[in-house]
């Protein structure tokens, strides 16, 4: 009868929907993908990171975050804050400049692009004439000096970006004052660095690429000093008092030059090659920081001996006799030093070194002995080992939260206790309403616990499962223990380590019971670990069981990887989650589904071959069920055969690329035989075209059959206390759904608590439902008599949920990739359904029950299904009537890994990976919204006549 009802135009419901649902992408967690530029404002105490996709992100105190995106999607090359302003300028690789500003709007600050500008040369000049290489925002805040490839320095007015042509500093003007014998026009090609004098804003230091350095007087428009370096110049740095400056060079050397009004000598005071005498790589950036005790900090990037350490990404810190070369696992993009920004202070007194590497942000405490790293509160490298799965747990009880934090703090003792040094802005977002955990499983066998309550995704605790197994890698292999005599004094820093010793260790499924502290983790080689939280270190034996999912079926041979070898005897575990049971599936295929029932002390796991149930109280396998279709050979061969085909397709695509390259090269070829080439090209193109016509992209239309491969693949497992056999008695049950559209239901008999150890848990298959459309079953759910989803185990015991209605009739919701179906229980008859694929052509990828509260009244909330489709759309579907409420486009449909990584929370939020290192957080709820809300106030400028310090932090980065 439901067909006769016109689809939803009930005005009351429509109004309610507006109060319940709303889609927002709120914040990006993690580390920006492909960072390309770094900037820092000591005035605002904000850091800016630009990326290759044109994004710019500002970070201050934890919770203070801004994001902007350039329309052009071009790489951000340089970022410069305007001194003493809430403004910054970015330079993109298309040579355009953009002015961004932080403005307060509606009680919070926002980052907006104000102007854009591209430097234009006189007509007919080559593009290099205006190619910007160095940017200097002048402390007067009125002009920007732009050094170019041609050697010209253009002056641009702010904020209008008007070129002040009469003030351009041309190479000719510079050369006028310099003796001809050692300089010529070529000395002034390409401006490498521009630096304002720290005390006298009318003087700027100009460094040209070939080594010539000129101190230019802006008032009189003339060069007052010149310095001639013998080596190609990389960068410049003024000392605080303006009496000396440092230059660093391509050959790995740096020089110190004195500047005095009377002495015009152009010889350096000191010229050092810190990692000489053999040829060294360039020092691309250098800082010279003065301290009270007289010994300066010299901090520079690069300069390693070319032959043996040329591949290292290093930043060296020299302070008296102390010298350390911090060794990064990925390329260093840029770095800056946080030092005393008070212009009246006599010394720099550096406190922290902030390094942006390609894959992580590392902050080194320069105040504490040993220069320890500072634990960053944000910009965590989520991908320090590739993320293989994620699991979200909402509303963690305080007790568990504290225990996890305490376990984590024991792991973090080697971090500095220094408060986070980048602390600009004020976080005015309300405190997160509850404690949320995001658990990520990684390729290296670790599980990371993140505080996902607020805007800053913060690592709380890291769990490693490696210790249980015997692997080739020695876990005690510490990269940091280098000998005393080692030169250069390298020290590994950072956590980014993308190399996995053994891919079988990879984590595939995680389930945490927040009430009991039981954690189940399953991996690539069929391993299932059950763990318990222990606040102390402990040494114990992990109970080990094997689950043969094939049950001696004949004719099958597993061609995939071997199972992991286990460590015999007791194993030492640090405080935190400690495994006590290991179940290994046989064949050791990837675990594809996992469920844990902490009250019944049962864990269920499934692979492509079948599923099993393990009693982790008695440490006994209860049963296994093989779901394999006899004709499904592919499932047995393991992942190897798929790799082969991938290889093949890769090879083909490479061939295709190569062919297209060849053809384009041919096309470019000019000269006498052009016509010949053209002819050949035409023929080639025709061939290609023909080939394309022969094999267009086509899709086979075929009904699914039981013989399709991977039909036995267990997609979902679910525990429920419901009416499986008859309507008078309910009992524990286990439900499993497969890729072939089959749902198995097992009736469980769990002995009462007092006899729990004495009697075995029994299971009996009670039902098997074969969906005729045979689409993979992605979700199973039982609704109670009030049509509310059954609560989680122990939820009722902890008084956090109403006990389920066991009087009325229960219903079973089966979600396949194509349809949602509600069946009655205990007699299975179909009651309702919603077809998705048949009508819209999209398939369900992820589905969760989410609770939506109204933003208008506190006392109304409802449960709905949050669904992500293969097209990247999110749909909300009502329970129990399965009506589509609302649909939002969320992820691009081409972003397969983004769609695969999506997790929903229980309160209508979600996360998905927008890059290997970043989670996008989104919200479907009007009530639960975690987004940055912060204010950046202009710190008061105390006196107007004080000398503005130049914004030396934003050193021009070499392109």
């Amino acid at each position, binding site marked *: 009868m439901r*067909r006769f009802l016109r689809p939803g135009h009930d005005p009351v419901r429509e109004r309610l929907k507006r109060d319940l649902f709303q889609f927002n992408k709120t914040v990006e967690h993690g580390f920006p993908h492909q960072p390309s530029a770094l900037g820092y404002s000591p005035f605002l105490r904000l850091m800016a990171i630009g990326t290759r996709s044109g994004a710019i992100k500002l970070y201050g105190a934890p919770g203070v975050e801004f994001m902007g995106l350039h329309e052009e999607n071009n790489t951000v090359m340089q970022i410069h804050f305007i001194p003493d302003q809430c403004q910054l300028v970015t330079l993109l690789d298309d040579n355009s400049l953009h002015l961004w500003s932080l403005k307060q709007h509606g009680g919070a600050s926002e980052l907006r692009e104000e102007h854009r500008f591209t430097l234009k040369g006189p007509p007919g000049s080559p593009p290099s004439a205006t190619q910007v290489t160095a940017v200097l925002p002048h402390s007067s805040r009125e002009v920007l000096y732009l050094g170019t490839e041609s050697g010209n320095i253009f002056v641009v007015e702010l904020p209008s970006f008007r070129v002040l042509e009469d003030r351009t500093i041309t190479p000719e003007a510079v050369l006028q004052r310099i003796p001809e014998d050692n300089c010529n026009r070529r000395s002034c090609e390409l401006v490498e660095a521009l630096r304002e004098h720290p005390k006298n804003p009318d003087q700027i230091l100009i460094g040209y690429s070939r080594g010539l350095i000129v101190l230019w007087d802006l008032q009189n428009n003339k060069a007052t000093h010149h310095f001639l370096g013998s080596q190609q110049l990389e960068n410049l740095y003024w000392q605080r008092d303006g009496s000396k400056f440092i230059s660093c060079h391509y050959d790995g050397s740096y020089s110190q030059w004195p500047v005095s009004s009377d002495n015009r000598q152009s010889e350096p005071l000191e010229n050092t090659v810190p990692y000489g005498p053999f040829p060294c790589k360039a020092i691309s950036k250098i800082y010279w920081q003065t301290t009270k005790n007289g010994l300066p900090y010299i901090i520079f990037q690069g300069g390693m001996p070319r032959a043996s350490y040329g591949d290292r990404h290093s930043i060296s810190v020299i302070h008296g006799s102390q010298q350390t070369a911090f060794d990064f696992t990925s390329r260093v993009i840029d770095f800056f030093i946080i030092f005393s920004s008070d212009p009246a202070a006599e010394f720099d007194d550096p406190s922290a070194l902030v390094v942006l590497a390609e894959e992580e942000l590392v902050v080194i405490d320069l105040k504490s002995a040993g220069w320890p790293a500072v634990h960053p509160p944000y910009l965590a490298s989520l991908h320090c080992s590739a993320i293989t799965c994620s699991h979200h747990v909402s509303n963690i009880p305080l007790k568990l939260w504290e225990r996890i934090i305490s376990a984590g703090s024991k792991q973090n003792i080697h971090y500095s206790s220094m408060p986070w040094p980048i602390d600009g802005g004020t976080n005015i977002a309300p405190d997160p309403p509850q404690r949320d955990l995001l658990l990520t499983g990684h390729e290296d066998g670790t599980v990371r616990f993140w505080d996902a309550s607020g805007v800053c995704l913060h690592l709380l605790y890291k769990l490693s499962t490696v210790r249980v197994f015997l692997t080739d890698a020695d876990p005690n292999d510490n990269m940091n223990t280098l000998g005393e005599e080692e030169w250069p004094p390298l020290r590994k820093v950072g956590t980014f380590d993308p190399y996995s010793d053994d891919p079988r260790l990879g984590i595939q499924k995680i389930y945490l019971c927040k009430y009991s502290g039981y954690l189940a983790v399953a991996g690539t080689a069929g391993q299932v670990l059950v763990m318990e939280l222990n606040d102390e270190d402990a040494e114990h034996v992990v109970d080990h069981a094997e689950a043969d999912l094939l049950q001696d079926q004949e004719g099958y041979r597993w061609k995939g990887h071997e199972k992991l070898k286990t460590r015999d005897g007791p194993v030492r575990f640090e405080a935190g989650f400690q495994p006590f049971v290991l179940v290994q599936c046989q064949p050791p295929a990837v675990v594809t589904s996992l469920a844990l029932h902490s009250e019944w002390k049962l864990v269920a796991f499934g692979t492509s071959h079948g599923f099993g149930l393990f009693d982790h109280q008695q440490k006994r396998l209860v049963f296994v069920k093989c779901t394999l279709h006899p004709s499904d050979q592919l499932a047995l061969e393991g992942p190897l055969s798929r790799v082969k085909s991938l290889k093949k397709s890769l090879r083909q695509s490479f061939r295709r690329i190569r062919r297209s390259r060849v053809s384009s090269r041919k096309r470019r070829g000019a000269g006498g035989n052009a016509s010949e080439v053209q002819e050949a090209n035409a023929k080639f193109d025709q061939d290609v075209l023909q080939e394309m016509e022969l094999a267009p992209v086509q899709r086979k239309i075929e009904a699914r059959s039981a013989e399709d491969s991977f039909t036995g693949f267990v997609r979902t497992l679910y525990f429920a206390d419901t009416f499986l056999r008859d309507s008078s008695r309910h009992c524990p049950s286990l439900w499993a759904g497969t890729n072939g559209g089959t749902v198995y239901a097992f009736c469980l008999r769990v002995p009462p608590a007092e006899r729990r150890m004495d009697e075995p848990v029994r299971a009996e298959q009670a039902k098997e439902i074969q969906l005729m459309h045979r689409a993979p079953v992605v979700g199973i759910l039982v609704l109670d008599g009030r049509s509310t989803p059954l609560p989680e185990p122990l939820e009722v015991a902890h008084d956090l949920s109403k006990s389920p209605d066991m009087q009325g009739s229960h219903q079973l919701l089966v979600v396949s990739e*194509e349809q949602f179906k509600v069946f009655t229980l205990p007699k*299975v008859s179909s009651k309702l359904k919603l077809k998705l694929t048949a009508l819209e052509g999209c398939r369900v990828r992820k589905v969760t029950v989410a609770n939506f509260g109204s933003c208008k009244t506190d006392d109304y909330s409802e449960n709905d299904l949050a669904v992500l489709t293969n097209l990247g759309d999110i749909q909300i579907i009502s329970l129990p009537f399965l009506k589509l409420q609302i649909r939002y486009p969320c992820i691009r449909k081409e972003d397969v890994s983004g769609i695969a990584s999506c997790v929903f929370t229980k309160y209508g939020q979600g996360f998905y990976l927008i890059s290997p290192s970043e989670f996008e957080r989104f919200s479907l709820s009007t009530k639960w919204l975690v987004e940055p809300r912060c204010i950046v106030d202009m710190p008061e400028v105390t006196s107007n006549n004080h000398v503005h310090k130049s914004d030396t932090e934003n050193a021009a980065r070499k392109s």
Partner: protein
Amino acid sequence: EFRRFSLERSKPGKFEEFYGLLQHVHKIPNVDVLVGYTDIHGDLLPINNDDNYHKAVSTANPLLRIFIQRKEDADYSAFGTDTMTRKKNVLSNVLRPDNHKKKPHIVISMPQDFRPVSSIIDVDILPETHRRVRLYKYGTDKPLGFYIRDGSSVRVTPHGLEKVPGIFISRLVPGGLAQSTGLLAVNDEVLEVNGIEVSGKSLDQVTDMMIANSRNLIITVRPANQRNNVVRNSRTSGSSGQSTESSLPSSTPNILGSLLQGEEESDEEDIIIEDSGEPQQIPKAAPASESIESLSQIELLHESSQNGFLPSSEMNLNHSAGSISMEYEVPEPGRKSLEEDGTIITL
């Protein structure tokens, strides 16, 4: 009236012999009868030659139910798909009040010998250049057997002719259902899938839609070859707006009707195996009104079958139901029952 006897599965013999055997068993040597059986999908299918007789024996599971009707009274409509399981379709009853009236059957050929594998539908409401084809996919091995691809087609728009992306049939698998119908051809443009327009949908989406509807696929195509189109009289006579069929008030409900009907029929086929181990089709949890409807439908079927089947008076047995149903036991060695490959717990 029931008879039950056994038959050697490995040597079923010829249809003629079997026919004779039936006449002998029922003691009706001179009565012409139609022989039918129910296949694994619950369809009543005819047995009238050696081939379908052998097929019938091979499907015995292990019982084979054979139905016998007297030829002159035979209700040919009893044969075909879903005949044994079809339930009352509420919607079609409401939309088509004429459904209850029994229409005289026009027997063109021998439909009783076949079951439909495809049909052209809604000819009366579609433009002549389009064709709506329905493919019936039974659980058989025969593949649907076609491929689709992206392409572009030319449309008439207010701005003149425009090239728009479209979905086309790119290949027919030899021996597949699509090819055997002769109603679909390579380069036919796909316009709709089960009543839903495909314009604006990607190739993958259309693929998914077709696969999701594969058990009852209705595709509307613009055939690449426009020479075989159905030419309607109504058009040529100039009364293009009016439909010649008076029973249809307008064309729209008919689209809905046929499509929804298809949907209903194809759907209630999920199978449940309770702990008894016997696979059953999942019934629809029926609201009260609907169950009455379905009841009446069953009665209707009974009446019609009673008309067609041998009257009991001719039989020796005193039988009120009037239909003869026999269960033939065919020995079937080595058949695995469902509970054997399953759990360690026996049911």
